[in-house]
């Protein structure tokens, strides 16, 4: 079993709206996200935010080892809270916290087990630069680990509502706990306009990543 891949995919599954995105798009907004990860992960997430400062949702995740021999399915119900927002002229900063509860099944352990997730994110962005730090704790009877993620983004031009936004993103991720140790770096190219967001890239070892997200 490729445990590094499994840990990375588990993190992605438990991030509220995928890598780098905010866990709450806007009040009375629905977010749907689908992600493909190197043929070893398929994922769908959906959230609804009654207010701009909290959202509820669920996720479905399928994980496969590179040889396809090992599979896991994780289903979680999640709540996200915007603890604090700073609205500045031409900039915004946020502090989010979240938690999730559900079950995990897999062919590397018997039956199903309770899965828990807790995390936080602090971010700052303008229309040209972005910085975020996120920490996730994933726990179950069979695994417990923490993943810290730092993301830095740069936009070659300042987009507006009616233009396509383009971002270059560098991501560093550090794993602790009983599954994986080490730091992983990835490079991503992201586009979004209106409520549609697509991104693609690869980690330094060449594994492709792609995501699509829709807000409405």
């Amino acid at each position, binding site marked *: 079993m490729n445990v590094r891949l499994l840990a990375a995919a588990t993190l992605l599954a438990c991030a509220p709206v995928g890598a780098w995105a*905010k866990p709450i*798009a*806007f*009040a*009375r*907004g629905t977010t749907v996200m689908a992600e493909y990860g190197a043929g070893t992960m398929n994922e769908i997430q959906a959230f609804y935010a009654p*207010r*701009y*400062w909290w959202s509820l949702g669920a996720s479905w995740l399928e994980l496969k080892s590179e040889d396809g021999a090992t599979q896991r399915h994780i289903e979680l119900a999640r709540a996200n809270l*915007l603890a604090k*927002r*700073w*609205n*500045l*002229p*031409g*900039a*915004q900063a946020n502090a989010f916290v979240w938690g999730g509860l559900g079950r995990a099944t897999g062919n590397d352990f018997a039956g199903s087990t309770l899965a828990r997730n807790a995390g936080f994110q602090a971010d700052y*962005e*303008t*229309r040209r630069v972005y910085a975020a730090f996120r920490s996730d704790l994933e726990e179950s009877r069979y695994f417990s680990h923490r993943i810290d993620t730092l993301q830095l983004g740069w936009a070659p031009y*300042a*987009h*507006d*509502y009616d233009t396509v*936004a383009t971002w270059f993103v560098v991501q560093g991720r550090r794993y602790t706990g009983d599954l994986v140790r080490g730091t992983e770096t990835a490079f991503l190219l992201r586009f*979004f*306009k*209106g*409520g549609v967001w697509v991104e693609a890239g690869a980690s330094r070892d060449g594994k492709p990543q792609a995501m699509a997200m829709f*807000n409405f």
Partner: protein
Amino acid sequence: MNFSKIGALLLGLLLSVAASAKTIEMEVNGLVCAFCAQGIEKTLKGFPATDAVLVSLEHRLVAVALKDGADIGDAELRHALTEAGYTVVGIRRTDASLETLRAGVKPHD
């Protein structure tokens, strides 16, 4: 004509201008991405008085074109944008159409 009549006349004139304003412009802090604009647009389109909405991230501008004879109070607008997660730092009313404002915020060639 005494001062009270002049005052009443001026007040009436001001109210008339306010009532006939076509567009409300708001300066908003925290506008940095399309999702911000999308949420604000969705919120403001929920007002029956709203005809159309313009959001310019570059100019930190949110503008609401009003339907004929309709209006939205400043307090309502501030509340709506605060509830959407943003900070209103200024509101003004204008007779300029949304198209005029849109032309003004477009990048120059």
